């Protein structure tokens, strides 16, 4: 296809992506280097019969004018990044110098806003992804050996948690595990502890969020692996069976190697989606014990009436760097494939 024709065809989609995906990334970088204006203060001296007094007040009008003139705020360089609510370099150094053990150091770091969110995001991604891969494969194999009549309905049921709106799905679970909900109340009864609440401790909150993550994404890996199982060649399986391979051996040496490309694909998708975990934290109102990178950006932007664009921008840039790290292996592999094809 000649380049001219090609350009006409891709013009709409490219324009949309450049304007609303590429430029916002640039805009986020610029924002992250600025900080909101401070309020303009005026000091007036008022003299009364008992001497003069200096009062300082906020000049609201001047502040408004300044904000309207330069909405980006003032230039702040890398300070937002290095400051306390992001990378907190100074706090890190101090914690390193004053703590005795590594565990103590970690717990000090965990109290910093950014690292707190980062640690939940990483743990969530690192726990949910392998669980979903293994359980998805197990369920796909299970469904595959069921009679044909029940396979369709079981796929229908399995699709529900995956396709339901994340905010809605997590609310549905939240209402059940809430202290008065069916699961929450049953747990209180089981452990004979009426104050037991999944929201009360960080561990339980993390556990519930991770359970939601598995519930929500498991169908994806299940469906993909189920489709993959339909393409497993029968000849090697039969040969293995004749040679006396057990079901486990067949699985390990024939089925899993055949599904390996799918495993890579599913892992990539899961990593991308789990890394942006956000909605369940809103639904569970879990922010006291668990926050994620996406959630702290949301929180900065929601800051009522006075969104912290600079701070949100800095967290966004750091998140994007994280995503690029996650994608690095894939990008490098694709680049090699591409190079290899040309040689």
């Amino acid at each position, binding site marked *: 296809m000649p380049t001219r*024709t090609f350009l006409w065809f891709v013009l709409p989609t490219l324009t*949309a992506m450049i304007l609303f995906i590429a430029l*916002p990334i640039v805009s986020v970088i610029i924002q992250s280097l600025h900080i909101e204006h401070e309020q303009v203060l005026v000091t007036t001296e008022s003299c009364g019969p008992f001497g003069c007094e200096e009062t300082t007040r906020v000049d609201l009008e001047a502040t408004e004018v300044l904000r309207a003139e330069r909405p980006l705020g003032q230039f702040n360089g890398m300070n937002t990044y290095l400051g306390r609510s992001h990378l907190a370099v100074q706090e890190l150094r101090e914690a390193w110098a004053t703590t005795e053990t590594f565990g103590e150091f970690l717990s000090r770091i965990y109290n910093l806003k950014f690292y707190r969110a980062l640690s939940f995001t990483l743990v969530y991604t690192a726990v949910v992804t392998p669980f979903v891969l293994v359980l998805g494969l197990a369920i796909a194999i*299970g469904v595959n050996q069921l009679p044909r009549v029940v396979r369709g309905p079981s796929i229908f049921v399995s699709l529900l948690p995956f396709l339901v709106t994340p905010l*809605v799905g997590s609310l549905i679970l939240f209402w059940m595990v809430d202290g008065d909900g069916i699961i929450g109340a049953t747990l209180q009864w089981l452990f004979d502890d009426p104050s037991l609440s999944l929201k009360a401790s960080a561990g339980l909150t993390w556990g519930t969020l991770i359970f939601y993550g598995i519930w929500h994404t498991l169908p994806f890996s299940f469906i993909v692996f189920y*489709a993959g199982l339909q393409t497993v060649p029968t000849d090697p399986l039969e040969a293995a069976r004749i040679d006396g391979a057990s079901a486990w051996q067949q699985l390990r040496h024939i089925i899993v190697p055949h599904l390996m490309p799918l495993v890579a694909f599913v892992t990539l998708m899961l990593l991308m989606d789990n890394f942006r975990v956000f909605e369940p934290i809103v639904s569970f109102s879990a922010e006291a014990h668990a926050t994620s990178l996406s959630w702290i*950006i*949301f929180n900065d932007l929601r800051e009522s009436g006075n969104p912290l664009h600079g701070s949100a921008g800095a967290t966004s840039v750091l998140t994007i760097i994280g995503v690029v790290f996650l994608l690095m292996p894939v990008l490098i592999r694709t680049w090699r494939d591409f190079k290899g094809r040309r040689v």
Partner: protein
Amino acid sequence: MAAGKQINPAVLISTALVVLWLIVAAFPFMWTIWGSFKVQADFFSKADWTNALYGVFTAEDTGGPFTWRGYFGAWIQEEFWRAALNSFIVVFFTVIISLTFGTLGGYALARSGRNYAFWILMAALVFRAMPHITLVSGYLLPFFEWNIWGILPTTIIVLVAINQPFTLWMLHSFFLNIPKDLDESAMVDGCSRFEAFRRVIIPVMWPGVVTTGLFSFLLAYNDFTVTSLLLSEQNETMIPAIESFLGTTQVEGNVMFAVAAVVSATVPLFILILFFQRQIVSGLTAGAVKG
């Protein structure tokens, strides 16, 4: 085979696992749908969970074991219908525009063997991985400045753009499966590239477009990040409306409004899966099976 007679423990375990999963997957939905027709004292019954089954307090309060109170409160009193209407507008236009942009782009990418086509696809993959909230934090300030914050068209075009990477990939691999000869022979017969696309490709592309459209629908319908931050209160769609219910109703003790709204928002998805299960499954696996 002789082994067929005995109960194979491996089969037993894997069947049990499937049954367990199906219960875990379906039970929350059944429970919440059933409970949405009860009063709060039944659905959130600390004393006895069977209250939610029989509706003891519901019968006491309203005279029958089922009540539409939650739905009435959500749809009429809290004007959830407005949010539903906004959702419909946003989703409808997002799907139509995404598919138009996506088919044109996906077709061109599938037919061009040049390097830049590869790079566009790679960029789309990276864009696909961007958490939506990072993009939204880039929009807010400029949108405020240009005075286009809070209105439906802005949200629609943003959702279209966020949708593009996925749509492009999906339709690109779909068009790769349509033989090149089809449109090239039309061009030999004197059609221009665009005429060939219109007369030859458009008539055969509908299965791929329907599958991609389903996923565009899901992305726009399920979105919370973009709609909650880019829409003003009167333009809210359903999902952010549910979230703002939570803030206001928890205080007034009207959690059942939110429960009813949640069930209402889930019903269209049920119907969608019911009718398009095959297309959804094929769409989920399309990208995967081709590697």
